[in-house]
């Protein structure tokens, strides 16, 4: 994954349609197109699906995910709201109880904190308490590498993975972005869908057709290997693939396991990769302490300890807020060089 140069404005560039970002295969659809296609197809397929959020109708979303939607589906299915994240999620929950399937957009995922109580106490606990399904999807742009600063760079997965009743997914490719969003919308539970805004227009690849979904709870090996495994998700997949490619040139064979779903974790896939390689680096862009890496490492200790040839390593963002200025952001977030060097340590163990 290439970092934006100092002085470019990657975060805000992706707001505007016209600007194209770097990509290796410009003919293929982008990651963000995968999100748009999934929403469009599910709106066409199921009349109980509607979208609700801030500036998603007339403005077509801060990142233009819902381009053309108001025209195609009308204001009864594409709902602009006041700036009221808590009310949006609460209203989506009420509508879900009445048989609708709302998809909430957070303008930036950072603002999900304003809806905390509605998500973790209301939506997540309804089915356990009184047996009613709450089929809502909450999606929004997450992640850093965009000079977004402390309030536009959040990776909030660990906050929500702690909550029974929620499912959490984080696609790394357009294929998964589309397939997982369809699964999230069709799922009968509240699903938090974390899309990475740095990948929006930088990642290209094929998209699945209208009837293909990517199941929730199933990880995928993005690159098979025999010498060591990187277990990761989201932006980390791209760092890991770059590091693996660099190390392949030196004769090392690194496997990359993309978790894709963060709750529930695919334990079988995690154990299987340990069995294949015996060495594991867990990588994520969210902070180290209390992050998903600890959970993955614990699962490995419980279920695959004898298969390990080295202690499990973790690489993650530093335990600081994500700062704005380029040198500081670079210091805090993981990059390919650090992944490569962590893998070298692991391979040499």
């Amino acid at each position, binding site marked *: 994954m290439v970092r934006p140069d100092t002085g470019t404005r990657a975060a805000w560039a992706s707001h505007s349609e016209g600007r194209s970002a770097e990509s290796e295969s410009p003919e293929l659809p982008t990651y963000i197109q995968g999100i748009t296609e999934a929403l469009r197809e599910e709106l066409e397929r199921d009349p109980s699906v509607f979208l609700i959020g801030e500036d998603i109708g007339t403005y077509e979303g801060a990142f233009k995910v819902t381009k053309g939607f108001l025209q195609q589906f009308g204001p009864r299915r594409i709902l602009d709201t006041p*700036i009221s994240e808590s009310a949006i999620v609460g209203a989506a929950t009420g509508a879900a109880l009445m048989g609708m399937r709302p998809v909430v957009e957070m303008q930036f995922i950072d603002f999900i904190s304003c809806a905390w109580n509605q998500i973790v106490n209301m939506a997540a606990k309804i089915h356990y308490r009184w047996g009613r399904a709450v089929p809502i999807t909450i999606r929004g742009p997450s992640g850093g590498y965009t000079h977004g600063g402390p*309030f536009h760079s959040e990776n909030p997965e660990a906050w929500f993975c702690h909550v029974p009743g929620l499912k959490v997914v984080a696609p790394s490719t357009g294929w998964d972005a589309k397939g997982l969003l369809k699964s999230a919308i069709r799922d009968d539970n509240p699903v938090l869908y974390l899309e990475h805004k740095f990948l929006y227009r930088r990642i290209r690849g094929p998209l699945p057709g209208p009837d293909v979904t990517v199941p929730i709870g199933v990880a995928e090996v993005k690159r098979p290997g025999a010498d060591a495994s990187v277990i990761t998700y989201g932006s980390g997949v791209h760092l890991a693939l770059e590091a693996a490619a660099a190390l392949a040139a030196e004769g090392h064979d690194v496997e990359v396991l993309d978790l894709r779903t963060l709750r529930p974790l695919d334990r079988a896939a995690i154990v299987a990769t340990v069995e294949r390689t015996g060495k594991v680096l867990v990588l994520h862009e969210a902070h180290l302490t209390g992050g998903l890496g600890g959970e993955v490492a614990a699962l490995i200790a419980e279920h695959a300890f004898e298969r390990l040839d080295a202690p499990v390593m973790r690489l993650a963002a530093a335990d*600081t807020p994500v700062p704005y200025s380029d040198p500081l952001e670079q210091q805090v977030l993981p990059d390919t060089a650090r992944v490569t060097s962590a893998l070298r340590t692991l391979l040499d163990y």
Partner: protein
Amino acid sequence: MRSVRTKSPPLATKAVKPALRGLTRPQLHELHYLMLLNRAFDDRISALYRQGKISGGAFGSRGQEACSVGSAYALEEHDVVGPMIRNSGVILTRGLPIRKFFANYLGRATSPTGGRDGNTHLGDLSLGIVAPISHLSSLIPVLAGVALTFKLRGEKRVAITWIGDGGSSVGDFHEGLNLASVMKLPFVLVLENNQYAYSTPTSMQCAASKFSDKAAGYGIRGVTVDGNDVLAVHHAVKDAANRARSGDGPTLIEAVTMRMKGHAEHDDAGYVPTALLAEWAKRDPIERFRRLLRSRRLLTEEEDRATEDRVAREIEKAVMEALSDPFPDGPTALDGVYAERSEDRGPA
């Protein structure tokens, strides 16, 4: 009633006769200067963004200078402010060196956040500035807490913050303003109704006919003023601050104005009718105030030009210095997550 920046002497000590709405001629000139500075600063931020020198968001307040400058100028030095993204004029009026303000946008080590945050997200308690977060309305309870402290300690100080028409729909607006109202805190909330929240018109935020009607539900004073009339804003905030100081509790001031550009530099605001913009352009707060001062013979053409020149010089010097300021060193990013030094504690 003074700008920390310009340190104009208060009326009482100088025994100068007020020239217009309780303000002396030098004070009127300061308002004029500060609004010009506000606009020139924002324009330069816009230019820096277009040159690719600002890596994050770049926000302006064109058309809203009277809201920021008029309200901040109505405060005393020991009052505390919580400015938002449209309030570069508040930060400038409080006296933050212009260079440091540019440095914050530019992510330099010399800025108040040392590059950790950008744009108007900066705090400096020596100037009575509490930094916002992006999450709209979150500062309202915090400034209520500042006001609570003033009340508990019997200090005649006021806390003030600003909110947009859109931000008034977020939950903390209600909780913060209600708490301040119930506790009768020395708190002022200026709601800048600039007709839009990003692309969303005010009709989608509030079903009441005026935002100031919300005040009734909290049992506090609510007033609506012309937000493009710097003297009206100044008067309303001065009055609210006086009442707050004398124990009468909070006021909600709705300043009606217009966001004359997009939400931020990336947004061309194609959703705003051009006729609406043309209508508001006639009410430009800086031109209006200039015309008023000129017609009352309170500002000569030479004084006006000299002020423009001064602003241009100050902005140019500050931006050049900020551009030559260093970026922070990467490893410093890891320091300072926790308070460990006694000098980081709040002022007693």
